[in-house]
């Protein structure tokens, strides 16, 4: 067995009284597509928010490629190659697609102390190609994200993550509120991550979707991992039984 790309050990998280993670330990291997399932409130988002640096664990440890890491903000995680598509808050609806794609990572013509003039042309061109790369068809990078449909918005979020992708891509319930067709696209996309050398963590509470695109399924309930099996060693029935 190769060394895991991400290891978490004994993670705990409390939200003023709610014990949201109760000692979660998990190894994630390079190039696998891991499906994380569980009911609402199981702690899935909390776990991946810690992996992506938006929240901090109260106890426990994380290792990335064998090295201990402690992300104090999302930038740390992004710089180490972890891209995340969040359940609710990936896009600023009042801004254009081009500006959204590059929030926090704007290409600069020149800068002083980290503040500088953005290269608008590069932002527009790169966002057009990033969007084309995920097979989405939007006419202009200057469209306001708030004007897009849910599926198009999710598509832009995926395009952004892919544009900056490096090692790990986390998708937190990306198929919520999507049409059947759009959902299919996302599933196909998760399945294709492997070929690009990217490790995927796909969160859903729809088992069919997980079984369609993942190599391994991890089920959470009430802040704990209650099952962890390879897809071929289990079935939708078994997972339903456990949850």
């Amino acid at each position, binding site marked *: 067995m190769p060394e895991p790309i991400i290891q978490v050990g004994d993670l705990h998280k409390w939200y003023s009284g709610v014990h949201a993670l109760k000692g979660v330990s998990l190894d994630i291997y390079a190039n696998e597509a891991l499906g994380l399932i569980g009911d609402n409130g199981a702690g899935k988002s909390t776990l991946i928010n810690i992996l992506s640096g938006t929240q901090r664990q109260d106890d426990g440890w994380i290792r990335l490629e064998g090295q201990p890491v402690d992300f104090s*903000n999302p930038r740390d995680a992004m710089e180490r190659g972890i891209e995340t598509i969040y359940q609710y808050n*990936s896009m600023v609806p009042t*801004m254009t697609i081009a500006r959204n794609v590059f*929030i926090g990572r704007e290409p600069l013509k020149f800068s002083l102390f980290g503040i500088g003039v953005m290269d608008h042309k590069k932002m527009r061109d790169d966002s057009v190609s990033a969007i084309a790369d995920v097979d989405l068809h939007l006419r202009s990078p200057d469209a*306001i994200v708030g*004007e897009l449909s849910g599926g198009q918005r999710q598509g832009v979020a995926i395009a952004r993550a892919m544009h900056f992708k490096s090692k790990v891509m986390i998708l937190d319930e990306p198929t919520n509120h999507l049409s059947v067709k759009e959902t299919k696209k996302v599933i196909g996309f998760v399945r294709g991550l492997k070929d690009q050398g990217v490790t995927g963590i796909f969160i859903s509470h729809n088992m069919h979707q997980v079984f369609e695109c993942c190599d391994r399924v991890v089920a959470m309930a009430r802040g704990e991992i209650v099952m962890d099996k390879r897809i071929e060693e289990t079935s939708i029935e078994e997972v339903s039984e456990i949850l």
Partner: protein
Amino acid sequence: MKRFLKIYLEKPELAGLAFLVVLTLVFQVRSDGVFLNAQNLQGILGLLPEMGLVAIGVTLLMICGEFDLSVGSVFALTPMLMAILMEGGTPFILAFPAGLAAAAAVGFANGFLTIRFSIPSFITTLGMLFVVRSITVVVSGGFPPFLPADALPKWLFTVYVGPAGLFRLSVFWFLAVAILVSLLLTRTNFGNWVRATGGYLPAAQSMGIPTARVKTACFMICSVLAGFAGTIQVIRLGAPLPSLGEGLELQAVAAAVIGGTALTGGIGTIFGGIIGAALIRVIDNGLVLSQVDANWFKMAIGFLTIFAVVANSWLRKKAKSIKVET
């Protein structure tokens, strides 16, 4: 209609600009041509920078998703501190930055308190409005410091220049600041962060934007511009009064809103804030010229503000329901 809405969504300040043109024409006719004569324009353009600078800062801060009600008080405090220092023998070149530093400190306090205790900036800065005004009155000792006529560099800020002495120099300071802040907002990565922070805070945070620092910076810029504006007014008048700038905070918010800035943050332009400020100055002046009772001024601004917000939100809703093609 669709086309119109798209233009509106992209440039919400154009409605204000159109209204400004219409009003100018109306006042020009009603005042028998006095409104646009050199002397009256000189008056309007002389006052505009002082309110316009405040409006620029308030607009920037509102786009970032926060409010500042303390700008009127900072407008008075900054030149008061400067004048007191100068009375004590400090040269202008040191006293001026010292005043602005005090303004920056107030802005920092506004940002720090708002973010650290996660309270609405409406409340933080309302408190600061009283605190700073009180400090201004106390340090002035009840009557303003006396400054000799030549102590203040009028030649640098308020002398008349240009054809027929149409402009005070302050107009150019105002334009320079307007262009700078506008470029900061539209061209730089910092501007992108301001829009993201005000547009949807959780998304900005999840993309790793240092939102607390971005907000604090905007609070400080807003405060410093208010202080600078107050300093220009004192240089124009020749003496600081502790009561300067009372009510200015609400006019500045009105200017931003009339210029298309959304109360919820994320939407707006510096140009819009300036259009709003110009509208307020024009209404004030035009009403006087049309020999309307001056007390109607606040009523006009009040209705215009409410109208602007209602129109903005109506148009935005309308724009959402018509799906704009992409």
